[in-house]
């Protein structure tokens, strides 16, 4: 088994609209893969399809070599496929701590809930200070920390992160990315979808560029030339 997660000719869409076609991507264990691309390229839809939140039209998803297309979302999560969604999607009426407890909903994670919670509090001391506060009252950066913390409570083997820098100040964005750098050093497998190409490239091992439902570039980080990537990104070259 070479890849932890791979897709084969995967297609999905909403209603009459096809969002992406024939995507064959691979994600290696212990490495960080970044998917960059403009709005509407289908990046978020791709992640949602990996999680089973959207049913694929065609193709296959394999996690640890096992076909996943028919698995319900909660089984995928229990197996260690975890998503930190775009726009945080926190439970705003629940407290910070209750949000983390919800992260430990998958059966296998319930026993180690307290240990994982303390680990998250260690990673984000600010969440510990605010543990009894309603999640809806957090600032954007704190909310993103909580979303990451909740994801870690699910004991991910592979973490799909969707636009973590959305709506954050540059300072906060740096702070969030330093967390991902730490996770990367701990050998976490990360799939990062970002529009902030600069930041995303810094922590990537492999880069995909997605445009209008297609992968238009797939290169290891070392081979990527930022100038060329941005030219492609903004369609300045053919």
């Amino acid at each position, binding site marked *: 088994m070479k890849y932890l997660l791979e897709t084969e000719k995967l297609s999905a869409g909403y209603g009459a609209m096809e969002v992406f076609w024939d995507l064959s991507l691979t994600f290696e264990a212990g490495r960080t893969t970044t998917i960059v691309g403009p709005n509407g390229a289908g990046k978020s839809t791709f992640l949602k399809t990996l*999680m089973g*939140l959207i049913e694929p039209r065609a193709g296959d998803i394999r996690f640890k070599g096992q076909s996943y297309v028919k698995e*319900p*979302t*909660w089984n995928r*999560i*229990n197996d260690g496929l975890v*998503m930190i*969604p775009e726009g945080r*999607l*926190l*439970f*705003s*009426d*629940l407290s910070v701590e*209750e949000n983390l*407890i*919800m*992260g430990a*909903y*998958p059966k296998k994670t*319930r026993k180690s809930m307290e240990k994982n919670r303390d680990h998250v509090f260690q990673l984000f001391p600010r969440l510990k200070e605010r543990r009894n506060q309603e999640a809806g009252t957090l600032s954007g950066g704190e909310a993103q920390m909580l979303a990451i913390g*909740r994801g870690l409570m*699910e004991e991910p083997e592979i973490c799909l992160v969707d636009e973590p820098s959305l709506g954050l100040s540059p300072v906060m964005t740096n702070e969030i990315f330093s967390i991902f750098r730490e996770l990367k050093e701990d050998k976490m497998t990360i799939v990062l979808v970002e529009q902030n190409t600069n930041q995303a490239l810094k922590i990537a091992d492999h880069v995909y560029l997605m445009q209008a439902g297609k992968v238009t570039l797939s290169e290891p980080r070392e081979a990527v030339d930022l100038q060329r990537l941005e030219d492609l990104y903004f369609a300045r070259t053919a």
Partner: protein
Amino acid sequence: MNIKISALMLGVMYLGVPFFLGDNDYLIGLVASALIIAGVAVAWALLGNLGGMVSFGHAAFFGVGAYTSAVLTMDYGVPVFVALVVGGVGASLSSIFMMPALRLRGPYFALAILAYAEIFKILATEATGLTGGAGGLLSIPSLPVFAGVDFGTKLGGYIVILNIVTLMLITYYFIRRSSYGLALKAMHDSELATRIVGVPATYLKVVMLLVSAFMTGAVGAFNAHYINFLEPDYAFSGTWTVFPIVAAIFGGYRTLSGPVLGALFIYLVDQLVFKNLIPQGHQLILGVMLAGMIILSPSGLLPVITNLFTRKKADNKRGEAQHA
């Protein structure tokens, strides 16, 4: 606080009511009827508060439970106490037919389930072989003598329905405290977010519907053996939906004991006061009372009481501090 009030309320119901009203069949019967409403109100609030689904169709579960239990005892000689439980199971089974409605949200779910309730009423009217049709069922067996106690009396019946409601409250309490309770609470916030953390949201809703239907069915079955008579227009009457909803909202349907307090208050005030003032159409006043409650305290009667207690405590503490 909520728990203390529930315990206090149950204490009064178990000790105070039999002691003071035990030999007055009329009054104890009224309180028992109020508890029947309370039972349905708790089941309704469980689905509405924890499950986030407002139902206009609980009359269906009430009726199905009543008919299941009545037919089983009359035609198949099943013991009454067993039949009460099977009545609940029957109501749960009937709720399976309503599950397609779980795909709908908010008012659409409420209306769809109202339509289902009507279907069950028609079925009960037309299936004359089983239910006796519009003519109804007469002389349904009363609650039996069990362990030397005659539960067929007004007081005996009161004790049984009180036990049923207590069991329901305990179940409610434990569901709310469990991980399912938190997941259900989270579902109100964002169903998509619960799916992202791996909560099988639809499955949880199904379970809540089954539990709520079971509870309502068991209460409906109890009612059939308490009044010994059933007909479709009565057993599936909209009253069994509307009265519990009014009671639950009036008492505070997001609280544990609110629906019970609401049912006792609404039903007893209606029967003892308004009915004497306006013999016809006294339910009108209930509408006015409910509207007033929603304006003055949208979360119901129980929070008002709780606030009274806590404010007193706070005042006492302040008083002590000043003396010191």
